[in-house]
């Protein structure tokens, strides 16, 4: 139930983000407008948002693969194990992909 709800909520969030993202692509028609548009997203607040987006997208992708595997006949009494696998893969991808995103903004300033 929890996995189902999280999948649905993350999916709806990603649909809303997709609409917003496609609208933003209009800035590609003008180079200076594009640089201004990108600069808006190069702020600490938006870097956190980008990190959160990675969490949502990675979870939705791996949980979707879990659903696919179960549709293909994986024994349903191992659902829980598969879901833990989804969480583990999400954490690995978020750490591997998310740290480079936030590094210049939040980690580099802390280094000596």
């Amino acid at each position, binding site marked *: 139930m929890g996995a189902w709800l999280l999948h649905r909520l993350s*999916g709806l969030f990603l649909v809303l983000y997709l609409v917003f993202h496609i609208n933003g692509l209009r800035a590609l028609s003008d180079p200076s407008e594009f640089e201004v548009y990108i600069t808006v997203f190069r702020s600490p607040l938006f870097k956190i948002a980008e990190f959160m987006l990675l969490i949502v997208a990675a979870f939705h992708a791996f949980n979707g*693969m879990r659903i696919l595997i179960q549709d293909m006949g994986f024994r349903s009494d191992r659902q829980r194990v598969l879901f833990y696998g989804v969480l583990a893969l999400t954490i690995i991808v978020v750490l591997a992909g998310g740290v480079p995103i936030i590094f210049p903004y939040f980690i580099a300033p802390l280094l000596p």
Partner: protein
Amino acid sequence: MNRQHDFQGVGSARSRALGWMMQRITGVALVLFLGLHFWVQHMPTGFLATAEEYSEILRRLGETSPEFADAIAEGKIREALPGEHVITYEKVLERLRTPLWKLINIMLLLFSLVHGMLGVVNVLGDYIRHSFLRKAAVSCGWTAVLFLAAQGIASIMAVGMN
């Protein structure tokens, strides 16, 4: 309430089966395409400008265009932080000049829209009980998908046209 009534407004059994299959096909495709998109647009690779490259790009653009110079002076376009990799028009243009990259981006756009809309159809089917309202909502959704697909493809194709 019979099973047939439950599904009114979300299509026939055949179209629901097709939707179920498409949801899975586009989902697998998205894992690959979105993974590539994330690697290219969010990871510190040669597809993005380094802080030094970005500084050079801004200097060059500021010299050649008063519009850029004003935007930089007003802080609307900022220099990169040390170690930051920046998405910049020049790098996007470099990539999207290649027809294959344009095709990859259009495929990503279409897979995302179809996958998202099929998911929304499921949600609408679960929560809108009235058959007519459900059909109307699903039709509006697919119309929005067509509009967004056209807008997104136009944006991708426009790169490098000016």
